[in-house]
């Protein structure tokens, strides 16, 4: 009985150990799941929208870095998650960063976020008014990868929907500045059609069996071929040479047309003098020579330099560790800096409707800027109305097709933009 009890106790301990391990693993699994959930962009519960704030078009005429609180509430990720928005433009991250909470993982670990709204569970059905970014037609900003200039003054990294300005400062630096995003409410629909066969009560009845092409089950290569070949060769054949077999004596290359090398050198002959083994093998007779060079290399220092003593005067001592005795700070004026704002004359547009866009660029820096170029790459659903652009001051306008099937509009100001000066560009686009 005692042995059985011992056995039971051993089994009980084993079960206890297994149970403890299972509990630990389940906890570990929860923690791991929690970490993986935290890697998802933070989901924020909708907040109360202030009265008077831009209500439903949160991305309209608002710079990405200047979203009001109402707008951030309107485009909360909880509303976006309902429709499967993958946050291509990083709105959720910006909102989370604005709230001082980079991610829910950071909130939960550090406890920095006092409000549970930022890190609460994901509501499956938000009570606020949701927004689907796919219903909006947005243009502006600079999506990653950011735009930059290459040697032939070509802008690289300007995706469809990006709108940037680049300029050259007094220091010669080329700077880029992205505009804000302008969004129009303009959903467009498509449809997928499928025609099936028999119908009963609108339940499509599919075929019971489909006739799949039946191929060969196998190939037997051992079977004899149907093609027979006579392998008996002729023992003797009298062949008479015909006229066309007569050899042409004029055939061939004349000797004088053969180009011969002027100088023929044997390259390998030079290499034959090299002995690779002799370079890598240290002979005993060379050790003394090597040690001598080693000592010379180590002992040759500055303090061993030649010193001259004249009438018992010591030579001046060279001090290499010098400290800073004075610091002069020169205050240069800041370089020129541009701000760019893009606006539209309406916040919603039906298909086929024309929308007027305006891009306003102003030098808010402390020095002039030159070679100002404004580039706007249109999304595929915006079609530039030919001849509708105008700029003040004058600018050179050119278009180029972009990868989305629309156009890239570019204006290059003819004159430098001085401090405080601004340029306004207007153009019209048709929503398609």
């Amino acid at each position, binding site marked *: 009985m005692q042995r059985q009890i011992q*056995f039971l106790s051993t089994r009980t301990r*084993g079960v206890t150990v*297994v149970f403890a391990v299972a509990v630990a693993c389940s906890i570990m699994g929860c923690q*791991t799941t929690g970490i993986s959930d935290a890697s998802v962009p933070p989901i924020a519960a909708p907040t109360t929208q202030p009265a008077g704030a831009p209500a439903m078009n949160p991305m309209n005429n608002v710079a990405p870095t200047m979203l009001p609180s109402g707008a951030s509430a309107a485009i909360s990720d909880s509303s976006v998650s309902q429709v499967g928005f993958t946050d*291509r433009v990083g709105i959720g991250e910006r909102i989370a960063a604005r709230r001082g909470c980079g991610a829910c993982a950071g909130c939960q670990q550090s406890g920095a976020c006092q409000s549970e709204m930022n890190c609460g569970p994901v509501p499956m059905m938000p009570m606020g008014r949701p927004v689907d970014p796919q219903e909006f037609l947005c243009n502006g900003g600079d999506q990653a990868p950011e735009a930059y200039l290459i040697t032939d003054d070509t802008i690289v990294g300007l995706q469809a929907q990006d709108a940037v300005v680049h300029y050259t400062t007094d220091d010669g630096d080329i700077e880029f500045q992205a505009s804000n995003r302008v969004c129009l409410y303009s959903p467009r*629909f498509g449809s*997928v059609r499928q025609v099936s066969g028999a119908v009963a009560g609108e339940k*499509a009845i*599919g075929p019971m069996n489909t006739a799949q092409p039946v191929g060969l089950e196998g190939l037997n290569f051992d079977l004899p071929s149907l093609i027979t070949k006579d392998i008996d060769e002729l023992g003797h054949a009298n062949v008479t040479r015909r006229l066309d077999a007569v050899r042409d004596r004029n055939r061939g290359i004349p000797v004088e047309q053969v180009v011969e090398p002027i100088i023929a050198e044997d390259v390998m002959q030079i290499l034959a003098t090299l002995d690779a083994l002799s370079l890598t093998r240290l002979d005993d007779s060379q050790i003394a020579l090597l040690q001598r060079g080693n000592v010379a290399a180590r002992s040759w220092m500055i303090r061993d330099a030649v010193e001259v003593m004249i009438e018992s005067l010591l030579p001046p001592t060279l001090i290499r560790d010098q400290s800073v005795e004075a610091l002069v700070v020169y205050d240069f004026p800041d370089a020129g800096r541009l701000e760019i704002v893009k606006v539209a004359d309406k916040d919603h547009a039906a*298909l086929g409707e024309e929308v007027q866009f305006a891009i306003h660029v102003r030098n808010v820096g402390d020095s002039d800027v030159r070679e100002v170029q404004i580039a706007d790459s249109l999304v595929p659903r915006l079609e530039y109305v030919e001849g509708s652009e105008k700029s003040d001051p004058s600018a050179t306008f050119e278009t180029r097709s972009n990868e989305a099937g629309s156009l890239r509009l570019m204006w290059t100001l003819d004159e430098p933009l001085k401090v405080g000066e601004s340029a306004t560009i207007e153009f019209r686009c048709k929503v398609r």
Partner: protein
Amino acid sequence: MERHPLPTDQGEQPIATAAVAPNQQRLKLAAIFALWLIMILIGCVCFAQDPLPIRNTHPLYHQTLPPGNVWQSPAATAMNQGAFQPVAFYGPKGATFSMPDNGSFAPGEPRLMAGLMVGAVYRFRVTNIPGAIGAELYPTVELIGRLYPPPGLETSFPIPINLSQTDLENALEGNLVTRVVYLEDPQSATPMQKTNDESRPIDIPFGADAMATADSYGRPIAIIRLGSKAPPRQVELQAPFYFGFPTWAPIFQPETVSQ
């Protein structure tokens, strides 16, 4: 057990020297078993975080699924089904549409607009089909999503229900035409001029998944099925045929006054 048989012939008096070895062996076995379980559990936890397998079918819809059953799936997320989503019916020139009202139909309108509930299945009537005098069709429309327009623009941007002449002819010939309307992704939209009343669908073969195809182009928002030519004569079958006559909201278009 076979290596260390219990000394049962000596009653319940255990032999201390013989009992030590089996207990140690059992302890070792228990430890090995516990380690084995740890490895299995860790493996389960690790493998449980693998990404979901990629399927070529839509998780909510299959072509053999009857109308209205999309929302019966537990994978379907809850949505605000209480709101009316405006839809607009477009067809070939001359065709008229009408919604059922207590078992009867109002006179057809060529540009019918109505507010439908998300998740419900509505059966409407198509009459005056060009090239088919007297023929009628009773297609169904099922909204599986809605729009989120700014306030005041709900009726300005209805979901277009486009039926082309080919669709109507296919349905009259006894085929089932399934159309999945999707909200186009503006990033990947085709740079073509489009209007709401035009019908330019993407045709897919019978074996393909219409919902999955629409899902790859945008957000599926409505399913239209054409095939029924006449309602049942029995009164008992009318309610199932019309899917219980779900409530819909009429949307009256502004009348144009000519002076």
